[in-house]
């Protein structure tokens, strides 16, 4: 077996040095009643070539694949990924390293993450960003927990119904066992969150909004911030499409106290939903409440600049019973990937790409309207929007699928009140030609 280097002579010599006469005897401390007795009957070991064939077969079972034109976002976005990003993030010195507990031999990871924190902070308009969380959903849950920690005795949070339904499910799973109460805020006819209900809520630690929200609608964060702060809550925002902030005013500038979301858009393959990248930042005063790892700058004994994991006292290594969070890893290589992607785009490219997503999305917006469809929400959107068709869209969608175009996501399962409406996403990967084909098929 190519991963197991031991020859039988070596095993013999090592057993002799240990003073045991067989490999089995190494496990004498495991009592019989704890032993595995059933054979596993796993599939026979496959050669590298059989494995390649097997995965090719699984890939062949995907009706939608990388050659499809995909107009679905809803928390996972197909953007172009430069070969440089794949190639650099794949360098084994990054990929096969552990958490940088020995900073002298991990300055690559550490400087890379420090740069990630910095670029992400600039993108989101916050003062500090951590070294990343699991994903957008758990990041939001952690943000609300953080809000509750900051607010000390308060036990209630609110979140908008326009937040990704899966994220809200994660929040519920995280918050309910400890007995926190969650208020869900409904949305207005224009697709933005209705904050009017907040007035009557007391004991409110924090309120969370998503922008662009699940419907693709850009929330009025400026106004929301004032309302939420007046209601005595911390203002938390989340996102699923960070590219939006290449064009739109960022949450920090709108007064958000904690900003989190999913960074998969930035150079990370969708991979059926993971690994992604929980981006997470906040205003400076809250830095010691921040969950997750942080990389900080310092100096070595000779005064040279260097980077280390820092503020670990918040973590479980040091005072395990006092830890403020159980998070003890980050999505390291994903954060580095996003940093490489952000560096490749640059400020100029970021604006240009964000603008392109917006323009293309607006193009489909209009083309569908001209084909007789209705854009459901009046508030502005970035690269996603909800559409209602004059007639049953299902056969049209099926015909488009036969042409390898995946036209939108039906909303009924997630929002019963929106059954028959579709959430469309248009990124730079979608050509005008595809959008024209969709409009033509709607008309047909």
């Amino acid at each position: 077996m190519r991963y197991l280097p031991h020859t039988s002579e070596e095993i013999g010599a090592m057993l002799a040095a240990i003073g045991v006469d067989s490999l089995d005897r190494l496990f004498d401390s495991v009592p019989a009643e704890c032993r595995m007795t059933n054979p596993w009957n796993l599939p026979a070991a496959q050669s590298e070539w059989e494995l390649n064939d097997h995965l090719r077969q699984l890939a062949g079972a995907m009706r939608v694949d990388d050659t499809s034109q995909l107009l679905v976002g809803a928390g996972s976005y197909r953007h172009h990924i430069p070969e440089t990003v794949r190639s650099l993030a794949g360098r084994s010195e990054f990929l096969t390293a552990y958490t940088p507990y020995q900073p002298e031999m991990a300055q690559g990871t550490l400087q890379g993450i420090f740069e990630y924190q910095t670029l992400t902070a600039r993108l989101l308009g916050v003062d500090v960003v951590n070294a990343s969380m699991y994903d957008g959903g758990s990041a939001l849950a952690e943000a609300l927990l953080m809000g509750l920690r900051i607010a000390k005795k308060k036990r209630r949070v609110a979140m908008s119904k326009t937040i990704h339904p899966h994220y809200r499910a994660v929040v519920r799973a995280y918050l309910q066992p400890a007995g926190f109460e969650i208020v869900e805020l409904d949305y207005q006819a224009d697709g933005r969150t209705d904050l009017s209900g907040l007035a009557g809520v007391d004991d409110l630690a924090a309120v969370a909004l998503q922008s662009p929200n699940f419907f693709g609608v850009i929330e009025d964060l400026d106004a929301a911030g004032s309302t939420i702060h007046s209601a005595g809550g911390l203002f938390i925002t989340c996102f699923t499409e960070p590219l939006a902030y290449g064009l739109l005013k960022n949450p920090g500038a709108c007064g958000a106290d904690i900003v989190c979301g999913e960074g998969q858009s930035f150079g990370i393959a969708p991979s059926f939903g993971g690994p992604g990248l929980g981006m997470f930042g906040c205003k400076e005063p809250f830095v010691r409440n921040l969950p997750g790892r942080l990389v900080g700058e310092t100096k070595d004994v000779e005064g040279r600049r260097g980077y280390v994991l820092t503020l670990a006292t918040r973590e479980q290594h040091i005072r395990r019973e006092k830890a403020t969070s159980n998070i003890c890893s980050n999505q390291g290589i994903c954060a580095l990937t996003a940093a490489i992607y952000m560096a490749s785009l640059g400020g100029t490219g970021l604006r240009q790409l964000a603008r392109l997503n917006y323009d293309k999305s607006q193009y489909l917006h209009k083309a569908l309207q001209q084909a007789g469809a209705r854009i459901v929400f009046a508030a502005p959107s970035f690269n996603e929007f909800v559409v209602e068709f004059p007639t049953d869209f299902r056969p049209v969608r099926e015909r488009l699928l036969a042409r390898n175009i995946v036209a939108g996501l039906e909303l009924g399962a997630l929002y019963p009140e929106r059954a028959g409406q579709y959430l469309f996403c248009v990124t730079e990967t979608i050509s005008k030609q595809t959008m024209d084909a969709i409009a033509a098929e709607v008309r047909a």
Partner: protein
Amino acid sequence: LNEPLLWHKGKKGRIGMSIPESDVPAAAIDEALLGAPVDFPDLSEVDVVRHYTRLSQWNFGVDTGMYPLGSCTMKYNPKTNERQAATPAIASAHPMLADELCQGTLRLLHELQQFLAIITGLDAVSLQPAAGAHGELTGMLIFHAYHRSRGGQRHKILIPDTAHGTNPASAALCGYKAVPVKSDDQGMLDPALVASLMDEDTAGIMLTNPNTLGLFEERIREIAEIVHAKGGLVYGDGANMNAVLGVIDAGRCGIDVLHLNLHKTFSTPHGGGGPGAGPVCVTRELEPFLPVPRVVKEGEHYRLDSDRPLSVGRVHAFHGNYGVLVRAYSYILTMGEAGLKRASQLAVLNANYIKEQLKDVLHLPYDRPCMHECVFSDRNQQERKITTLDMAKRLIDYGYHPPTIYFPLVVHGALMIEPTETECKDDIDQFIATLRTIVREAAEQPDLLRQAPQRTKVRRLDEVQAARCPCLVGPSDN
């Protein structure tokens, strides 16, 4: 060679990637929505390539050399796993599509769940947790949902001092108060002590087996019976599963919930901190509480099922770290049953060999057969005022990643060595010889250790300063 920070490179107007030409007209946008341009540096492609190539050269990975980081299981990360995860139809798979459009990715989920159930001896698996600690949290959510379903919520949980570090925090998230359980002078849990602490307000016990001393908890079954008798559940932290594949059956041990670390036992790369994956395996009785959606097979068709009223809900927006799951699946298929079992045997062989070859020069607090890792301490070096940290840093000068240090907490000045099965005897012998040299240096030239490392890009860093005045992002106007 130094490499400046990203924002000290570049010039406004450069670009490092291709942006498609627009084929649509520019659309109007409300100026009030627009943000200020984001202050990212503009770099060319070669700027980016050189920046990250240089950064990578300051890093040490498993591909660079031996990485005997105890508890982290830094085994070799096979290249073919990377290829499989990059399969275009899989890497581009969208997580929100209808089941019939993504049968391939669903099938892989279903098969991997089955493999992990078989391997652990438990009955049902959720692949959603994105890391070990996330698996622990999921396990605690299951404990909580289970007790709630039985009508009476509980408020405490037993956690031995030899359990993994994140266990108390995971339990706290569910409102449980951790009750510490001390290990005995053999590093073992004492059933009598557990019995004295276990009561009907205690949700159960969270233990790590093999424990963080690298020792097998021999009386686990007895302990489980005590906990079960009081209506509690047993959580087994499976982070150390690499020691006991094919040896233990978690079900027969009395474990109700167990998480695995795919980035440890199942060879997926650690990525400088993640992503990992922490699947949770449970007994049939607890299956209804697993996160949704569940993947079910109906005939030859795979389907996602969310209709599980007792479920703890979701712990991840989608299906967990799917790309990591693909790598673990690839590893299991490559190793097969015999290969996986052999891996544990050799991992334990390597650890015991190191233990035997070093125990005459390094203090071994628990001198008994270990599993896949062995724990020394710096007691023999104290007289020269040489610490575990000094020895660790000196190993860097010899080209090794140091072992885990100062963990587990029950050993003062711990030096925890986990070689893994992918290290060969030659390399282990060389590592042993190096540590013996360092021990000699500690006695004869202790300053060599205190001044270490010398050959790295930076030398020892001021961590106190970093934490006192945190500098977490670069200056914003440059």
